[in-house]
């Protein structure tokens, strides 16, 4: 039976910025955004569960984040994950992708005997797509990024399609391997009602032990490689993007106005003849 680790992240829902999350100056109030399961990590989890359905597997879902990230681990349990782990420690705060991958790689090594690691292609808050490959590098796995379909899976290898921009690559990859999964690869299943009832009341570190909390010492990590200390990059400045108001010339919807609009376009932009 294969052992699969899915890397998941809780992210602010940057896509649905409602009125409540907008400040008066037109910038986004990040604290007011709802936190969600990173969409493409759901596709990674779905792929893990598909592999489990087809050939049998033990599916672990781990996340590094603040305590409230326990919400996505519960969601993973509802969908069918066998084991989850919340990797949390104040000393992990402000980690860039290098420091994050260091921690996640250690957690995967600690689980041990892992055949397959699945991650979403990218997270919607940072869009870097770097953590997956950087984990692969640290655990010494082969990787296939931009996986857009799972064609075949058996005990020895997977056959996947990779979106190579100008071409689709059909790749046979033996275990162990790390895949980063795109949204088009599958449709994540709904949470299972019975599992929801079973896991609904759980919290991290409760007496069931189903959602263990893992900290820096549990993973025997070097503090100088974690969090801000272990991050080569620094955020120097942040600017909220505001709509830039240009001079706007409005046209009416009268045919004469539209004719004027067409003339203006033609005059300036169309190379006639």
């Amino acid at each position, binding site marked *: 039976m294969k052992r699969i680790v899915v890397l998941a992240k809780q992210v602010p829902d*940057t*896509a649905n*910025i409602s009125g409540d999350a907008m400040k008066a100056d037109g910038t986004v109030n*990040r604290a007011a955004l709802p936190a969600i399961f990173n969409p493409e990590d759901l596709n990674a989890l779905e792929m893990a569960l598909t592999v489990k359905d087809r050939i049998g597997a033990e599916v672990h879902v781990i996340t590094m984040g603040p305590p409230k990230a326990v919400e996505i681990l519960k969601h993973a349990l509802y969908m069918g994950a066998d084991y989850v782990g919340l990797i949390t420690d104040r000393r992990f705060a402000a980690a*860039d*992708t*290098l420091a994050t991958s260091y921690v996640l790689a250690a957690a995967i090594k600690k689980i041990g005997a892992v055949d397959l690691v699945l991650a979403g292609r990218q997270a919607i808050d940072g*869009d*870097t*797509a*770097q*953590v*997956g*490959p*950087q984990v*692969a*590098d*640290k655990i010494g796995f*082969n*990787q*296939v*990024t931009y996986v857009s379909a799972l064609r075949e899976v058996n005990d020895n290898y997977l056959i996947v399609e990779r979106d*190579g*921009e*100008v*071409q*689709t*690559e*059909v*790749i*046979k*990859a033996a275990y162990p*391997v790390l895949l980063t999964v795109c949204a088009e690869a599958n449709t994540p299943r709904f949470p299972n009602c019975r599992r929801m009832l079973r896991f609904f009341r759980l919290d991290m570190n409760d007496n069931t032990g189903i959602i263990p909390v893992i900290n820096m010492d549990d993973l025997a990590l070097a503090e100088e490689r974690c969090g801000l200390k272990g991050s*080569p*990059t620094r955020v*120097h*400045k*942040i*600017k*909220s*993007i505001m*709509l830039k108001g*240009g001079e*706007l*010339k*409005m*046209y009416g*919807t009268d045919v004469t*106005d*539209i*004719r004027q*609009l*067409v003339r*203006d*376009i*033609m005059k*300036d*932009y*169309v*190379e006639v003849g």
Partner: protein
Amino acid sequence: MKSVVFIEKNPVTKRLRNVSLELTYKAYTLSHPQGSEVVGVFCGEALPEDSDRLFQFGMDRLLYHTDQRLAQLHSLAYKQVLEAMIRAEKPEIVLFGATHTGRDVAPLIASSLKTGLTADCTQLYTDEYKDRGKILYQMRPAFGGNILATIVTPDHRPMMATVREGVMLLPEEHLQNPVRMEEFAIDFNDIWLKSEFMEIIPKVKKVDLAAANIVVSGGAGVGNRENFRLIRELARALGGEVGASRAAVDFGFIEKDHQVGQTGSVVRPKLYIACGISGQIQHRAGMEESQKILAINKDPEAPIFNIAHMGIIGDLNEIIPVMLRYLKEEV
């Protein structure tokens, strides 16, 4: 500050990808004022047919390693070869295209070199930083495009960044650097070849949005696939390309390769016409830099009007047919 630029070939056309030229020129503007070199690094089964062009955009030297086994993207092999080249050159800046190849390999190399990598930069410049002297300032959108962050890598070298195609501009005039290509030797190890490429299916890409002078885009407001004909007709009448918002693609009005925005193409045409597009941040990320923007939308409050230069409030299904009629008259 010496720069290394990852040079990429389009596997279908066998020619350079535009992003390689764009980054070469960007590196030239970063390194050349300080008297430093721009070095390209390439690996693959054969050099791009038009490699010489790099030297018209500021390249000083191109290091290459060619091997039949590198015909496809074997991540580990690419990482080994490119990392060896970077270690040999000891640059301060390393730039990769934020392509599906660059975004596959660059993080592996940054992990191995234990240095910083900033994804999808939209601006790069050098400036003083505390007592470190000049370093690279890397600006990128984050948070779904709602913020613009400036990222620095103060204490690690090289400072690595990826940039999407179409973001950095090419110069009007060509440079005339002498062509210098050097083969880079490395002991190739077959254990780097872990994936088996069973089949390569070229995608038929019909649209070249980045090159178009005029882009006419339709969004959810177009309503249905049938109405999208109006967008195509307007584009044809103006000699432009057809673009779309993600909502239009998701509704199946048009194919994905027409999508403009954060997860589509980045365009900066002379004229961008947004029809029935609200102008969400992810869409704007792909078209904001257009020279002129015309918005056609029935909602006067639509955010697209905040960045538009010309606007018309109304139903596109009524407005576009009238435009088409007058366009035919004008020609």
